[in-house]
């Protein structure tokens, strides 16, 4: 420092120099900022934990609810029913009057048969009740048997879905087909059944487990080619059918996880402005949404999102200056008397003073995406058009924001931001519940700069990948 004459010269002059500051700076503001900074640390950790717990909780509830739903319905049957309404949902109706009549007949028949075991009695009663309750008395035996046949077959499916044993089914099948030709009366047919026959047990379950009953009717069960006419039984619409509206079985709620990235470059090769800025901006957004299918291909939803928007650039400023150089030469004339002539040679040089520097900015933000989607088929591919509005707030702003002709420092104060995304892309179904959507998109990124009291924004093009899950 002793060898630094400049410091000796300047130190004393600058040491006590004071500069005023604006009203935006005060002791109170500094203390407030300091307090917020401390609070931020305390705030963000619980917030992060809260978000993680929400996701975990949501996932747990989702799987839990899925598990409960699985007990009450047969996904295979219900799904096929919902998706193929052309399958006649006949073969199942209930006529209380006939049921009662059938019950009486069954009881009488049982008495005639004189079964001794109480357990068998119970089974047989239930068996008779069920058979009678599910047929229409005016129908022929053949049709009635067909109705029974439907039940047993449906129940087979139900059992499959509930993971119960399927050993029961072949015997019931044998039972039905062995009896179809010779049986004249359904009641007799039912009563002749061995109480220990698994079909009785099945029908018991069928009777007391309404949620397990699928009303759609499955194609005829048997060997060889089925006769469709045999199954076109005109049975009046029963109350079960009205209860079993397939649409209520279809969930209309979805979750979506979306990753989206985009970029934009700028350059001023023409040099139209004194300052040229070359830069690249890119962004990445992560979103989690809950969506509701509103029907007719429309879907709306909301969620949370986090995004980072970064810009890196280089500014170049060229200033032309005309500089004068004076060279002087002394010429001695040796001819007496000796004279010295001083010649001054002046030259002007045009010099370019070039300054350049790197600039960088970064904006991190949290947002609440509000999504509006429309899905449609174009050709054989399903497509989705989307519009998203993402209002939110910035969590971090720093650096120098730039556009084509200028750059300036942006304040660090937290402020509002608003993003919007327009996308269009194909939907690719992975499984029944999982779908991937590829989304080329354009995204407006903007935020309000409180220091300069202006809104800065850019449109970046990008590509998104969304994973859609149906509850």
């Amino acid at each position, binding site marked *: 420092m002793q060898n630094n004459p400049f410091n000796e010269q300047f130190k004393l002059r600058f040491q006590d120099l004071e500069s005023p500051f604006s009203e935006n700076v005060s002791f109170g503001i500094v203390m407030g900022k300091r307090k917020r900074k401390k609070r931020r640390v305390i705030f963000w950790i619980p917030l992060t934990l809260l978000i993680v717990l929400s996701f975990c909780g949501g996932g747990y509830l989702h799987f839990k609810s899925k598990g409960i739903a699985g007990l009450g319905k047969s996904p295979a049957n219900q799904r096929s029913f919902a998706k193929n309404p052309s399958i006649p949902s006949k073969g199942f109706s209930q006529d209380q009057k006939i049921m009662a009549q059938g019950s009486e007949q069954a009881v009488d028949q049982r008495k005639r048969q004189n079964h001794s075991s109480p357990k068998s009695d119970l089974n047989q009663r239930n068996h008779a009740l069920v058979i009678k309750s599910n047929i229409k008395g005016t129908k022929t035996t053949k049709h009635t048997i067909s109705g029974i046949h439907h039940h047993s077959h449906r129940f087979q499916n139900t059992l499959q879905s509930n993971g119960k044993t399927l050993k029961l089914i072949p015997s019931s099948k044998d039972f039905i087909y062995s009896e179809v030709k010779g049986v004249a009366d359904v009641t007799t047919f039912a009563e002749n059944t061995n109480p220990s026959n698994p079909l009785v047990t099945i029908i018991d379950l069928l009777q007391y487990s309404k949620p397990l009953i699928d009303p759609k009717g499955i194609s005829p069960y048997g060997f060889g080619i089925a006769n469709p006419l045999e199954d076109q039984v005109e049975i009046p619409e029963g109350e079960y059918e009205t209860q079993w509206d397939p649409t209520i079985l279809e969930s209309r709620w979805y979750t979506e996880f979306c990753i989206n990235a985009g970029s934009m470059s700028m350059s001023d090769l023409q040099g139209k402005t004194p300052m040229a800025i070359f830069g690249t901006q890119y962004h990445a957004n992560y979103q989690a949404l809950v969506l509701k299918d509103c029907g007719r291909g429309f879907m709306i939803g909301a969620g949370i999102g986090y995004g980072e928007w970064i810009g890196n650039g280089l500014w170049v400023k060229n200033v032309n200056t005309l500089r004068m150089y004076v060279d002087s030469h002394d010429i001695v004339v040796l001819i007496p008397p000796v004279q010295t002539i001083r010649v001054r040679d002046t030259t002007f040089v045009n010099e370019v003073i070039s300054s350049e520097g790197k600039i960088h900015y970064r904006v991190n933000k949290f947002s609440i995406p509000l999504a509006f989607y429309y899905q449609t088929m174009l050709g054989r591919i399903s497509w989705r058009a989307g519009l998203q509005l993402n209002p939110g707030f910035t969590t971090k702003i720093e*650096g120098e924001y730039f556009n084509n002709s200028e750059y300036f420092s942006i*304040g660090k104060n937290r402020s509002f931001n608003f993003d919007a995304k327009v996308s269009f892309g194909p939907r690719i179904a992975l499984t029944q519940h999982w779908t991937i959507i590829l989304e080329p998109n354009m995204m407006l990124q903007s935020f309000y700069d409180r220091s300069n009291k202006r809104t800065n924004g850019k449109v970046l093009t990008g590509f998104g990948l969304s994973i859609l899950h149906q509850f």
Partner: protein
Amino acid sequence: MTEKELVDGCIREDRICQRELWDRYSKKLMSLCIRYCNNQEEAEDALMEAYIKIYDNLNKFKFLSSLETWMRRVTVNLCINKIRARKHIWNSISDDEYRIGFNDNTFENLQVQQILKLVESLPVGYRTIFNLYAIEGYPHKEIAKILAIDEGTSRSQFSKARKALQLSIEKLEGGVMPS
């Protein structure tokens, strides 16, 4: 209130002491920030950040130097970090500038405010090194370490800064060209 009492009070989060620390040094540190930053706003931001840092780290102050020196050091470091984050390129003016001589007494006739204005008009790279070397008194070796550049770069940048200032002063005084 002595420095010791002031520091102890601030560590205790005594609002009166913290206020006193602000009143005593804020304007001096503001003048320092202005020299390093691009504009008033940035300087004000830097000042506030520096004070937050000072309040948070006063317990690390060991009284090995004066409190003001320590505070200036903290503020300078903060400003330097800002400049480093901006990734400035440390070369701008062509080497032809070396041809022009420089008189060390050039600044003697100028007022401090005039010098300050001239320094402010320098590009960031020159200004930073001029501030660190000429005003703060950091040796080139330390400047190179702080800014993560070569010592030679620091020297050449300072030399160029001097010449740029010389040019500005000449313009200020009526365009007298050196012969």
